[in-house]
């Protein structure tokens, strides 16, 4: 399917169709997977509801299997509500939401992989606080998910969304790029701005390794969701200001793939290198990934 093979193709075909991008992604993906547009919309709606539910299911007293994750989202929420923060209330919510959903994932709650379980906090982290501030409807957010999935599909096809294949840049990086495009769309930006936001978000995450302590989706994954969300905001903001990426999005995506293939296996989800190989990680889990 040509439109999902490049961001350029996605944008040009969308322009030709005269449709809003969310609708173009919806229609084209339906043709390919042989489901009706109504079925697709209903499924995306259910997916959005599940995303919202994953946020609401948080329990501040719960800890993950390893005992390393739990309670941090609540600390962030308390700090945000105190009013005494560096970044203010909106950014405070973004950070707290990223931690909330990612901690829920680590504690075996139901989440929406977006694009992966390990990066499931990024999209809700930017969408839910933004929707709250701008008073957006459920329909608006479902449309934003179609936009995110369209750009995500390009990344998955040209490069990868798997940490085992291409490192964390392919998980948190891809999630960040998808979130950036969704934000640009919601804020009324045009297609070029979406493309630029994707390019900038991925460039900023280039080379990020997948180095989970004890091989678990906990450390450093949970807090990296915060980094992915913050990077999405900055990239979307720059794109909306008219700042362009000097390197086109498709070339950035291709570069991510090359960089991913250059990463040694120890930095691709095996839990053997990076932060997973730090002295403290070894002290906590002397038998390596096994707990």
């Amino acid at each position, binding site marked *: 399917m040509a439109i999902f093979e490049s961001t350029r193709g996605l944008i040009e075909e969308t322009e030709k169709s005269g449709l809003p991008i969310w609708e173009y992604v919806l229609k084209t993906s339906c043709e390919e997977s042989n489901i009706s547009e109504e079925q697709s919309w209903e499924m995306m709606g259910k997916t959005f509801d599940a995303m919202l539910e994953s946020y609401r299911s948080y329990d501040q007293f719960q800890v993950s299997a390893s005992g390393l994750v739990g309670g941090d989202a609540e600390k962030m929420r308390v700090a945000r509500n105190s009013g005494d923060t560096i970044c203010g209330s909106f950014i405070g919510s973004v950070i707290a939401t990223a931690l909330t959903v990612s901690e829920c994932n680590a504690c075996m709650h139901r989440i929406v*992989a977006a694009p992966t379980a390990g990066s499931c906090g990024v999209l809700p982290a930017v969408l839910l606080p933004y929707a709250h501030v701008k008073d957006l409807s459920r329909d608006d957010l479902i449309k934003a998910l179609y936009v995110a999935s369209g750009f995500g599909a390009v990344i998955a096809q040209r490069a990868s969304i798997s940490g085992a294949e291409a490192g964390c840049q392919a998980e948190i990086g891809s999630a960040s790029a998808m979130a950036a495009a969704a934000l640009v769309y919601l804020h009324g930006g045009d297609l070029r701005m979406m493309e630029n936001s994707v390019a900038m978000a991925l460039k900023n995450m280039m080379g990020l390794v997948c180095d989970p302590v004890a091989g678990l989706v906990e450390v450093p994954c949970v807090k990296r969701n915060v980094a992915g969300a913050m990077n999405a905001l900055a990239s979307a903001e720059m794109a909306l200001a008219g700042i362009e990426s000097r390197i086109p999005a498709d070339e950035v995506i291709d570069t991510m793939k090359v960089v991913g293939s250059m990463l040694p296996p120890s930095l691709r989800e095996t839990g053997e290198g990076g932060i997973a190989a730090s002295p403290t990680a070894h002290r906590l889990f002397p038998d390596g990934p096994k707990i």
Partner: protein
Amino acid sequence: MNIFDLIGPIMVGPSSSHTAGAARIGLVARTMLGEKPVKAEILLHGSFAATGKGHGTDRALVAGLLGMKPDDLRIPDSFRFAREEGLEFSFGEVKLDEAHPNSALLRLTGETGKTLEMIGASVGGGKIEVREINGLKLRFTAEYPTLIIQNHDNPGSIAWVSKLLADENVNIGTFQVTRSSRGKDAIMVIECDSRITDDLVEKIMQNPDIISAGKVNL
């Protein structure tokens, strides 16, 4: 490219491969067995053995054996549900030859005494492949209605099965035939476009060359 692989699946965390895929392996095994399992010996290979406990791979596999899907909120408590439903299970480790790093070998006994040995691999994003059944190597994803038939390696077995499928108006998507060696048992894996009924499986079994026939409709 399915966009619901980018925004989705909806699943119980923390890992699409180690949790969602594991649940699906268990679910496919239960379906293959064709009845409620009462005993399960589960052996974990590779990364499943190394990081499975922390990812809830063990609980997800048992959940699948109980018929739960990857988004079932009961997955974290599946061991308790297994006790309630009379499923006796045990875990161990195994080193399988040429297996995917995320693999599990399941030995099941059903309530009427049926048995099944299956190797399933979680190949990423919650997707799985069945790699071996009762010692015979094969490969299917269980994303389509699938017939798995073990037969004596005699002429006419394939014609018998395909005739019955044609009579029931079931269209064949893919058809694999393998055997361990000439004259030994063979296996057919047939992916279809519509549901496979119990009645059809019974009809297939009426040929003495057919040793076993199982189906997966998920």
